[in-house]
């Protein structure tokens, strides 16, 4: 459909493709240009309004009244297009419909609820690290650690059966690609979509889940009438959609940060209290979730540009997290910095409900590594994995020295 953009003539415009292979391989130059061009940049190729500065991105994330999620948080506008899967009741919903599912999931994944998992996850991390180091001190941080650890602990915590878990990463990879335009990355996932979706949906039913995991707790909330039984499977689906790839790439980010900043590893070992800061600082720096869209619910004035009602807004979380207007020396991984306030988990009513889970996974893995590893460095070419939304690696060879 040809549309005539109703932009003000003042808004900077760009023909760039933020979802093309060049930008996905290295987004930083594009993000710098985006931030420097202005508070809002119109992306002609996709008819969207992009923002990369911290202030604007933070404001858009928190202003759910003007920047809605129910018309989709990808390029696809649910006002005009059918979603590829039934919309998420968390991610792709606004108040009032968003309220009940959100409060239920927040409680299940909240800091209090995770206390009971702490010891087990720390023990699992130690086991995995011992396994990996037992084989060699040269290994792949992604293929041996960051892709493995979340899959060891999270599906169990959800209550999934053992079979079929290898479907989780491909499902997540496609779904995060699908927030972008229907480019090659989306098309490559198309052949398996139906099969993977069917599998994921089958994992959300009450009879398949164990009776005390996160999934069961969603069903318990339905029994208590906090949500409906019709809503329960889709809420469990959110756990499986958003809970795996994100943590895999978050852990990849923190391992990469340390492998490329050896003095920070030494610092961490000397001050274990920095573990939490380390993960959030790595999430800030790499922003595993790089972008999300919103849709304008009315004409919105952003820094002098009017974004018309119904238009898509593309928020660059990764760019905001490296905005020199907000962060000193933003491209440095620095454990003396306070990364609080980064938007790697979003902000506001849609802020990542799983952030405490992610932090616990990282704390456990870093704890286990700190105990055994004196130094860590990159040992070969790192290979990125391209995804329309996620900042990811396919391979990260590292070499460690034992403590």
């Amino acid at each position, binding site marked *: 459909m040809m549309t005539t953009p109703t932009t003000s003539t003042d808004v900077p415009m760009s023909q760039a493709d933020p979802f093309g292979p060049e930008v996905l391989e290295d987004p930083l130059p594009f993000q710098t240009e985006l931030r420097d061009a202005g508070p809002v940049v119109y992306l002609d190729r996709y008819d969207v309004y992009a923002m990369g500065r911290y202030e604007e991105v933070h404001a858009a994330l928190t202003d759910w009244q003007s920047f809605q999620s129910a018309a989709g948080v990808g390029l696809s506008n649910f006002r005009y297009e059918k979603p590829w899967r039934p919309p998420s009741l968390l991610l792709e919903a606004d108040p009032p419909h968003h309220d009940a599912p959100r409060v239920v999931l927040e409680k299940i994944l909240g800091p209090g609820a995770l206390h009971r998992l702490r010891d087990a996850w720390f023990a699992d991390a130690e086991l995995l690290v011992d396994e990996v180091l037992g084989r060699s001190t040269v290994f792949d941080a992604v293929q041996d650690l960051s892709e493995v650890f979340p899959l060891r602990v999270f599906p169990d915590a959800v209550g999934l059966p053992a079979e079929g878990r290898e479907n989780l990463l491909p499902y997540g990879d496609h779904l995060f690609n699908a927030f972008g335009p229907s480019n090659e990355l989306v098309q490559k996932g198309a052949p398996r979509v139906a099969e993977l979706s069917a599998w994921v949906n089958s994992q959300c039913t009450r009879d398949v889940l164990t009776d005390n995991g996160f999934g069961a707790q969603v069903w318990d909330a339905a029994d208590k009438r906090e949500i409906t039984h019709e809503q329960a499977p889709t809420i469990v689906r959110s756990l499986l959609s958003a809970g795996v790839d994100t943590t895999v790439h978050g852990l990849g980010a923190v391992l990469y940060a340390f492998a490329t900043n050896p003095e920070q590893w030494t610092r961490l070992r000397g001050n274990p209290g920095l573990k939490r800061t380390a993960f959030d600082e790595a999430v800030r720096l790499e922003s595993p979730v790089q972008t999300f869209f919103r849709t304008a619910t009315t004409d919105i004035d952003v820094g002098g540009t009017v974004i018309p009602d119904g238009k898509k807004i593309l928020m660059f979380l990764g760019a905001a997290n490296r905005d020199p207007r907000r962060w000193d020396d933003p491209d440095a991984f620095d454990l003396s910095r306070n990364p609080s306030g980064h938007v790697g*988990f979003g902000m506001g009513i849609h802020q990542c409900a799983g952030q405490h889970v992610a932090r616990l996974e990282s704390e456990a893995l870093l704890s286990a590594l700190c105990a055994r590893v004196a130094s860590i460095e990159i040992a070969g070419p790192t290979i990125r994995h391209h995804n329309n939304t996620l900042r990811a690696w396919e391979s990260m060879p590292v070499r460690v020295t034992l403590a």
Partner: protein
Amino acid sequence: MSAETAFRADASEIKLRVEKKVRVSNGVTTLTLVRPDGKRLPDWTPGSHIDLVLPDGTTRQYSLCGDRWDPHRYRIGVLRERDGRGGSAFICDTLPEGAMVGLGGPRNNFRLVPSEKYLFIAGGIGITPMLPMVQQAEMLDAEWQLVYIGHNRHSMAFLDELERYGDRVSVLPKDECGRFLLSSWIREGRDDTKVYMCGPASLLDEAHDRCGSWPTGLLRVEHFVPKEQGAPVRDDPFEVELAQSGLSVTVAPEVSIVDALKSAGINLLTSCKQGTCGTCEVAVLAGEPDHRDSILDDDERACGDRMFPCVSRSCSDRLIFDL
């Protein structure tokens, strides 16, 4: 000045300003509250209440009865109670527009859950949490009815606002309709209908009696008798001690614990700075927290072993954190 120290937009806001004060009925005054810096207030859902900390340090809970699509304002409705402890009389008679009040929460113990049908029963000032609920029930396309009981039409607030809902709302002043008969509105518990009630104890006691055997979650009730609070909120400094490092920091009245620690070089990881996300959670080893967050329920608050220092403060002279 570095970018990070210059950036103040995410500083915790502790006090709100009374923007507007309106006597809306015989006995009920509304207050509209805003942040002094004009920024967004913490998000809330229908049924939420806030802790209002008055200038003398006393704390009262009031339901939010405004429009959550206006993120810059909270509205509460205060019933002037003759036999109360004086807080409501102070608010209605004395507290002026422009005054500053302290904020805790919002918290929600009275959530609107999904339902095909709703029956809202409000007694007196119990109407306040129901106003955003009926607005929301409309948006959810649910079938709903509101029964509003009160002394007389002069005492019953918000009748003008409720007019737009036509006959979905039954206004039953006692001087016109006589004593309210719950039995004419509620019989058996129905799976497709959630009943929400808020009002005086006598009304709610009758509801508990009548609906006691109903399946869980069909009747939801919020009591409007203010709970006994502890000592008045302190307005003098307190100490926060970090057990593991032995460091001790003084927290001044206008400063959040997180900001006080930050000034002393201690960086606690935070995120929302509003007491909603849970990131800054700390374990409390000693002392009595003054909880201002939106996360902990009453039992968890009473336990006192965890708190969220981005917004919460201290009742005792000292808190010891396990940090």
